[in-house]
């Protein structure tokens, strides 16, 4: 203490506080927070069946060959539109249902299309998982992982439906239980192409084509590619 009774600690504390405030004022301003990176838009194409699993029997070929041909065609169209694609198979391979879901989940895809073909029914059938929508959880059960994505999958099915209808195709929507789809953690829709819808009884019109018809497959693939472009624009909207 000095003669006036003041403590020497007080000037020291004032000095320290002033120093801190001065250094804070002289520090460069923090850079603005960078916007979160936009997730890469990836589409997974799952050609159903393959290898030892031929799937259904179509008039001219097995379902596994039809889905692979459609997968290759759709991949080319999406790549031409600068959309990255991950396919579950590129050849006649046996792939487990769980492996298909693993590929889609590791790709962190924004859409997964599981391609099927059938002789029954007409037009294109779109199926979304029949799981009850659940809020997302940190650890999702493997067999019902799709439950947190069902709402987005329904939205994706709506976009596909619009594109296929715009292309003049007959479309039916439904819900089903598919193990591969039920384990995916991304918007996922099973697309089953049946025979082309009948074009009327006019004998001058061409007969309805089966799902293995290349021209019919091309038109379906074009519509699906257009739907993916629309889905990408929706996904990138804030």
């Amino acid at each position, binding site marked *: 203490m000095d003669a006036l009774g003041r403590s020497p600690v007080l000037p020291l504390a004032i000095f320290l506080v002033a120093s801190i405030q001065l250094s804070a004022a002289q520090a460069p301003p923090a850079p603005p927070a960078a916007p979160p990176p936009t997730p890469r838009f990836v589409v997974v194409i799952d050609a159903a*069946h393959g290898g030892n*699993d031929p*799937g*259904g*029997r179509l008039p001219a070929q097995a*379902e596994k060959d039809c889905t692979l041909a459609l997968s290759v065609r759709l991949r080319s169209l999406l790549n031409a539109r600068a959309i990255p694609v991950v396919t579950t198979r590129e050849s006649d391979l046996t792939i487990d249902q769980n492996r298909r879901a693993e590929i889609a989940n590791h790709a962190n895809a924004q859409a997964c299309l599981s391609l*099927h073909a*059938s*002789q*029954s*029914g*007409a037009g294109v*059938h779109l*199926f979304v998982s*029949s*799981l*009850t929508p*659940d809020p997302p959880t940190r650890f999702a*059960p493997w*067999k*019902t992982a799709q*439950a947190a994505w069902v709402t987005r999958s329904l939205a994706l099915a709506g976009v596909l439906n619009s594109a296929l209808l715009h292309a003049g195709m007959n479309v*039916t*929507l*439904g*819900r*089903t*239980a*598919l*193990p591969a789809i*039920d384990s995916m953690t991304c918007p996922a829709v*099973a697309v*089953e192409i*049946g025979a082309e819808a009948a074009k009327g009884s006019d004998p001058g019109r061409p007969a309805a084509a089966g799902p293995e018809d290349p021209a019919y497959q091309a038109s379906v693939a074009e519509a699906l590619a257009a739907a993916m472009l629309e889905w990408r624009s929706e996904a990138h909207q804030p």
Partner: protein
Amino acid sequence: MIPRHQTILFIVLLASSALMAVVLWQLRERAHQRLLSGQDSSPAVAPAVAPAEPATLLVAHDDDGSLLTQLQSLPLPQDPGGRARAILGKLLDLYAAPGSAHPVPGGASSIAQVFLLPAQTSATTGNNAASLPAQSAPATSGRKAHGPPAPALPPDGPQLAVVNLTGAFVASHPSGLETESLTVLSICGTLHANLPRVTQVRFLVDGQTRANLAGHADLTRTYLATDAVPTEGAHP
């Protein structure tokens, strides 16, 4: 030179062997006849003619992927399991008929049994593949229950229906997402429409679990009967 006594002994043994073979054959035939007489399949009781009752069928249509309600009048037994089997048999008869909107061969004989069990409430969300209860109660008539006694069904609780399909039906079912899903959903919806306590449905094929129906529709999960909602009004 073989001694004479050995020759005689050999002949005696050979004759004894032949005699024993004849006796054994006769015993076997008698046992077989006894077995057949115990399995007399001739009807001992005259079948009771059940009165015709209205039944609601959810009939699938492949053209638009819809399930349409159709009313039928059927003679139905009082036993719930037999009742369910008869209604599903009628549904599959419609599918097997010529000109069907959902052609599936097989008909009524494709339903081996229908079992009704107390439902597990944990499966009501539809997002779990509940395993079958360890104890099952065969509700169909004409078959005896084996194993431990089955749990009694609560008077008004929800029920799980286990539909046992035949392997021939599954082998001949057309392959495809839509057609298989429609078959499964129409069975679930028809059961719930006629037996409202049935809220869950599981499928077996020849008494065994099977991964899928014909390559697509999952048969390992428990289906909620409410999944099958008719898409349009009553169909004439």
